[in-house]
């Protein structure tokens, strides 16, 4: 009997040891052994992070950069050979930093598939190309209306260029696409579902063009067509703001509270155009007294950024009305809030805009886009900085619409101040198997405000448009405007007095 006993123990001992080794190999996600657990702000889940080394340029493979990525593991892995690859916007946003947003947008897709987030070259941890953007005090006090503005911008750009010490031509969309493919190969996925938001839709389309055999489907949320320069954005901003004015006029309480909103705004802009207003305000965080120079572009910029989300959008009438009456607190709040959104890698942003959006501008483009304030401003600023950056223009084929029969879902928001539904229509001219869904009341990034995350989950599972339930996209998710600094309720005490 002892003989039996010892034999069993030996057998069990041996097999357990081999199990342990094999097992630890399997449990560390996929075949790659360089992954390690990591976390990102706003997401409690354990992610797996890693990096691949990629040549900086295809011409000189000696110099390398590390492309960092994170994998949000599937809840219940049913498709180990597939994953969803998410592309961040900006251009210049780090996909890993906004993991919590992707986790929400791809919540249903994640139930059965891993989500891959890659910091595109020049962003986040993949050789970040960022320069000092100045403190709130500096930005508040800065007068972009002054004559010295052009010289100042050029100087700043030169300083930034000297700091970065890199040829931005290696950071264009075309150059970045191969990094994503390298990550796919390193992680061992056979096929990918793409999800891109905002600028992310451009890199998603470029990836699809370069590596069609790696792609099962693509979801483009807030679509940038390959044929179009980002400079065309001006019209979308104007019409999105106009929607706010129309909304307010259509709402009895809002109209009563802000009867001359659109006129007030124009009057205010005219006043600032003639002469910026300099006031002493409180720092939004430290409460120290600081100087604020209110210029036309600062007011327009603050209002523009507020258009991106329904929450901040609900403050726009209050901000305009108060500023017109000489109360700048709400404007200070918006300007201060803008800072926290930030974290766009300006160097990488310039690589894209100067390499892709600027060189292609024709004289008629300049005239057309220059009609809107923001179009004009963007052209002017690109004309200032691009000659300094000296980014090699991308090849002309880049601007051709992507031709494909891979299923593609396009999502647009009716109130989008950046990528309006018409852009998606332009993008899909050569997609032979695509569907464009518009959520009338969504702003920029449909999946983060509506039930589109559910639709995306269905689409990735079925790859068929007929089976999507999209009614919920029609749900009106606009928010009521703030009627005073306390909330979206008109002051009833006035009524009582009547």
């Amino acid at each position, binding site marked *: *009997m002892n003989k039996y*006993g010892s034999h*069993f*123990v030996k057998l*069990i*001992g041996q*097999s*357990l*040891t081999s*199990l*342990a080794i*094999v*097992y*630890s190999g*399997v*449990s560390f996600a996929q075949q790659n052994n360089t992954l390690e*657990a990591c*976390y990102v702000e*706003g997401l*409690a*889940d*354990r992610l797996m992070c890693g990096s691949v080394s990629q040549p900086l340029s295809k011409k000189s493979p000696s110099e390398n950069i590390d492309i960092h990525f994170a994998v949000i*593991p599937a*809840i*219940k*892995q049913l498709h180990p050979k597939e994953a969803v690859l998410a592309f961040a916007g900006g251009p210049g946003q780090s996909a890993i930093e906004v993991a919590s947003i992707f986790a929400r947008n791809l919540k249903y897709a994640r*139930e059965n598939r891993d989500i891959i987030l890659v910091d595109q070259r020049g962003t986040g941890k993949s050789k970040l190309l960022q320069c000092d953007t100045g403190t709130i005090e500096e930005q508040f006090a800065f007068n972009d209306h002054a004559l010295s503005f052009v010289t100042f911008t050029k100087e700043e750009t030169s300083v930034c260029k000297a700091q970065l010490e890199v040829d931005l031509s290696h950071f264009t969309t075309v150059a970045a696409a191969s990094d994503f493919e390298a990550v796919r190969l390193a992680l061992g996925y056979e096929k990918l579902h793409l999800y891109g938001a905002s600028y992310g839709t451009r890199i998603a389309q470029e990836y699809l063009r370069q590596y069609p055999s790696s792609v099962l489907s693509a979801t483009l949320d807030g679509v940038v067509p390959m044929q179009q320069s980002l400079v065309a954005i001006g019209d979308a901003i104007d019409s999105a703001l106009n929607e706010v004015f129309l909304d307010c006029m259509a709402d009895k309480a809002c109209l009563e509270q802000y009867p001359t909103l659109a006129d007030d705004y124009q009057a205010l802009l005219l006043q600032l155009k003639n002469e910026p207003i300099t006031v002493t*305000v*409180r720092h*939004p*965080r430290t*409460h120290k007294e600081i100087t604020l120079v209110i210029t036309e572009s600062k007011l327009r910029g603050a209002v523009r950024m507020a258009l991106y989300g329904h*929450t901040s959008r*609900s*403050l726009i009438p*209050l901000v305009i009305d108060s500023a017109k009456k000489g109360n*700048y*607190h*709400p404007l*200070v*709040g918006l300007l*201060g*809030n803008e*800072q*926290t959104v930030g974290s766009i890698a300006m160097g990488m942003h310039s690589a894209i805009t100067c390499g892709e959006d600027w060189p292609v501008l024709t004289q008629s483009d300049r005239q057309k886009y220059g009609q809107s304030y923001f179009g004009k401003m963007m052209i002017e600023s690109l004309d200032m900085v691009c000659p300094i950056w000296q980014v090699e223009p991308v090849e002309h084929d880049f601007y051709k619409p992507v031709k494909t029969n891979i299923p593609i879902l396009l999502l647009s928001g009716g109130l989008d101040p950046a990528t309006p539904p018409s852009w998606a229509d332009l993008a899909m001219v050569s997609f032979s198997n695509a569907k464009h869904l518009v959520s009338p009341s969504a702003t920029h990034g449909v999946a983060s405000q509506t039930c589109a995350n559910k639709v995306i989950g269905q689409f990735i599972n079925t790859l068929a448009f007929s089976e999507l339930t999209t009614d919920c996209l029609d*749900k009106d*998710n606009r*928010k*009521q405007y*703030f*009627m005073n*600094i*306390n*909330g*979206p*309720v*008109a*002051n*009833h*005490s006035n009524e009582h007095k009547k």
Partner: protein
Amino acid sequence: MMRLVQVLYKKEMIDASRDKRSVMAGLYYAIGAPIVMCLLFTILLKQLSSPEALKISIENPDAAPNLVAYLDGFDISHSDDDSVKPIKLVIDLKYAEDMSEGRSALVTIIADKSDNKLIKSVRRLEGVLARYNSEVAGLRLISRGIDPSIMRAVNVQTQDQATPDSKGGMFLGIATLSIIIALFYSAMNLAIDTSAGERERNSLALLLSHPLSSTQIVLAKVTAIASYSMIGLVLVLIVSKFAYGMVPWEQLGFSINLDLMFILFCTLIGLPIALMSASLLVFVSFMAKSFKEAQSYVAFVLFVPIGLSMMTTYDIATDYVQWAPIAAQQYAMIEVIKGNELPLLQVILSSLSTLGLFALFTMLSSKMLKSEKVVFGL
């Protein structure tokens, strides 16, 4: 000696397989338990999770259209039909006035929080209201020129070390418990039949009259029973693999995935447990005077492994119990499902002690067979 045991083992296996109904009865558990368990889990998951579109009654919604729209954005809305949950949200009549003047506007949740079916929905409503609170508060601060991030004095970030595979918690315990118990259930009938049954059929005395030691007889019986236990184990593992794959775990944000590695691992650590369980059941059956008595004792004895396993499942005194046989193996099984490191020392020690018990019970049984009182059930 070895050859004799082998011959005897063969005899016992043939003997057992003759009573096909009894063998099948033992294996029914292995096939049925995971399926029943998964059906129960599916129903339980449905009850634990809040319905996607949560219908509640909202009183006085006109006073707070903004709040009502906000709730609707999170799929919580008012309804009068049958689908409505017994949760009431009462909006104060002075809501609009208070909101407009910057006072806290009153909303009241009325619900029975002891109702397990409601708890998830009530928490969801509370959560959405808390979000609304911070959203409006943030906008109020911005309107006053203040950065709302100052409300977060400390930026609390949680790093959850769990993986989707390890969040199963209690479910994992119950699943592994059902697998371990298969080792006992599949062999129960057989153990009684081959010991107390053989005695009642008077063939035990005949067997003992052969030139064999009682240890050899017991060993052959125990290994034959253990073989059936192992068949039950493999069966329960295979059925579980498919059944658990059907349960929509992802609704609660985790998954229970029994991969091939896990099945092999369980088969391996199940072997000593099968031997121990067989020897224990045989020993207890010999102690009884009759077949019926043996059935009662065996049922009683089964509480010991179930109890040990329950302590792991419900995490009672895990620090000590995790070293005990069965509890330790179950703990290791859970760790393997979770994808954590294998507690190798515990597995080896508990397997050794399990084998020790197997030796002990076998020895005790063979000693009993030397007594005429036991052999003839006197």
